[in-house]
Every structure is written in C-alpha cells, then in structure tokens.
C-alpha cells in the first residue's frame, strides 16, 4: 500500500508540473474563444496545436483530479469497503469523462 501512495504522490507532482504551462494556455484560450460562434470555435479546435493541447489538458487535468480526490479519500474515508468503492468510482468516472472529451475532440478534428 505504501508503495502505491508514493507512486501517487510522485505522479501528482508530475501532473502538476505538466499542468502549469497547459493551464496558462487554457485560461488564455478560453478567454479568447468564449465568445466564438460555432463555426469559429470548431475552426479553432480543429487546428492541430489547439486540438493537441486541449487533449493534453483534458487527460492531465482528469488524472490530477483523480489523484487529488484519492488523497482526500485517504485522509477522510476510513471504512475499507467505502474507501475502495469511492476510489474506483472516482477513477472510472474520470476515465469515462476523459474518453467522452477525447471522442468529441476527435470528431471536431475530423471535421465536426
């Protein structure tokens, strides 16, 4: 168990470092494209670099969130069954949302 926690501690830091530049890009991008109409937004997100950065952001943010929630569960949820169940739910939920986001990005990339 302790091995798994060290592993998660390290990965939380790695994803945090990756997220620093991605977040700065993301905030600027969101503010720049918040008022886009559909055609403008799709045209922007179907370009390779924004599409790639958005996919990288979604994956690393979802992972960082899952590890962060896991840390909170380790601190506060004592019942072993509830602990396992809630951890799995967080991971599966994040995985599902990430896959949906990537599918949407792929569809936009391939031409809406």
């Amino acid at each position: 168990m302790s091995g798994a926690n060290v592993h998660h501690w390290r990965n939380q830091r790695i994803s945090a470092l990756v997220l620093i530049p991605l977040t700065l890009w993301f905030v600027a991008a969101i503010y720049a494209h918040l008022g886009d109409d559909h055609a403008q937004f799709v045209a922007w997100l179907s370009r390779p670099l924004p599409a790639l950065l958005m996919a990288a952001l979604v994956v690393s943010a979802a992972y960082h969130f899952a590890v962060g929630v896991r840390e909170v569960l380790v601190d506060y949820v004592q019942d072993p069954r509830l602990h396992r169940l809630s951890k799995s739910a967080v991971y599966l939920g994040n995985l599902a949302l990430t896959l949906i986001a990537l599918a949407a990005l792929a569809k936009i990339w391939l031409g809406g």
Partner: protein
Amino acid sequence: MTPVERPLSPHLLIYKPQLTSLGSLFHRGTGFALGFGFVPLLWWLVAAAWSDGAYALVQSFWGSWFGQFCFFGWTFSVFYHLLNGIRHLSWDAGFGFELKTLYRTGWTVITASVVLTIAAYIVAYHLRGPL
C-alpha cells in the same frame, strides 16, 4: 488483527483556523471546484462536436448571470490552485517552510489570485466586450 481506530486527519473542527490551515483547505476546495468545472468544459466540447443548436445552448448558459458567476469562480479557482500549487511544489523541494515565509507566500497567493482574476476579466472585456 482489528484495525486501529485512528483519528481522522486533519482535525478540521477542533483545529483553530489560521491562514495556513485555511489555505490548505482552500487548495482542496478549489481543486474540487475545478474537477467539477470539467463538466461544463465537457459539455462545451461535446456541444461543439454535436450541432449548432447544442453549441448555442452552451453559449446562452455562459451569457447568463449564473454562467458568468460560475466562470468568475472558475477563473479565481484556477489562479488560486495554480499559484498555491506552485507554493506546494516549492515545499516539496524543501523551500519556504519558515513561518514568516509561509504567511508571506500565503497572502501573496491570495492577493495575486484576486488581482489576476480581475485582470483576466478586464482584458477579456476590452478584447471582446461583454459576453
């Protein structure tokens, strides 16, 4: 072996609130908020991939007072979590543990987050006008 009944950590209700503990609590709070902020992002992406009508619905949400309120909170959460996260990374590297430094960086993060949030809004307003 029966598991030892350990106290929950940290003792949120017993511990006297101070900048350091509240800052930590707030880091987790904003982290959760950002995680749930994933849902509107997902909605936006899926709507853009889906249809004109679905996308227009998302835009009308961001244009509503509730959407603006969420977006303002989201922006503040991003800046706070980002800056305080960098503070965390410096602790991991062994820097900034002196009490005086802790308080100084703590207040810096809070002030900078507020300033950056307002600045982002002003810049966006100047670039695009009201949403």
